């Protein structure tokens, strides 16, 4: 199990690193997908099967594909290299901040001695329970989520279709 954890962690971290450092945008998205896969693997390892499947379905099936489309729609020539200058003007500021935050989180985790805690164990939450909780106790957030997704859907369509509306 430990071995699986370390392999998955390596995949995840490398995927994330490549996603933000590679020059070619398509390669970035592909390594982002690797990262998503790694996270899904972690979910399976943590016995959150349902969430793992949802992760693959939503992130790889929808979000990554959306990103691919966005890249395709925002490039003049397909498949050429990205902008000549990959990093923004203040990249050192971003990296510095990220390093500081990582270091601090690391320190806090050390300090709070979270390392000693081991899994609680017990019966797994079944999909049926999740479904029941979703439509019984959490029905209002659930409906709010439905409204949010509908709004996002309509909003995204409207924003992206702007040109057509203007043309009419």
């Amino acid at each position, binding site marked *: 199990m430990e071995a699986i954890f370390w392999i998955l962690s390596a995949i995840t971290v490398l995927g994330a690193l490549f996603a933000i450092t590679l020059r070619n945008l398509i390669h970035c998205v592909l390594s982002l997908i690797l990262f998503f896969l790694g996270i899904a693997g972690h979910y399976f390892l943590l016995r959150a099967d349902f969430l793992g499947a949802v992760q693959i379905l939503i992130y790889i099936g929808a979000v990554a594909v959306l*990103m691919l489309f966005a890249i395709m729609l925002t490039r003049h020539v397909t498949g050429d290299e990205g902008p000549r200058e990959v990093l*923004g003007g203040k990249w050192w500021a971003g990296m510095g901040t990220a390093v500081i935050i990582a270091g601090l989180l*690391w320190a806090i985790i050390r300090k709070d001695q*979270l390392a000693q805690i081991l899994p609680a164990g017990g*019966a797994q939450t079944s999909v049926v329970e999740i479904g029941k909780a979703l439509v019984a106790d959490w029905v209002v957030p659930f409906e709010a989520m439905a409204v949010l997704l509908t709004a996002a859907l309509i909003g995204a369509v409207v924003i992206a279709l702007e040109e057509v509306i203007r043309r009419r």
Partner: protein
Amino acid sequence: MNIPLGDYLMLSAFLFAIGLCGALSRKNAIIVLMGIEIMFNAAILNLIVFWHYKYFATPTAYIFAIFAISIAAAESAVGLALVIAIYRQYKSVDVDEFTSLKG
């Protein structure tokens, strides 16, 4: 499984930092969005880790994670639509060039 909680938290902290770094220093708006997605995922991973280690029998954290994933998906859909709209306007996706709100 005998992986201590701390290892998982480290992992998600590093992933978060990587995502933050990407969101802060890349020029391309899509990569910035990708960085934000990485941060989202790190946070959700944290949720699930705590669920697994402490609240395994209750579905609350799980449902929270599902909501977080849905919100992240909605966010990225709208964000990418905005990127496309902005691209039409500026013919560029370089975040350094979007300075209409300059004070």
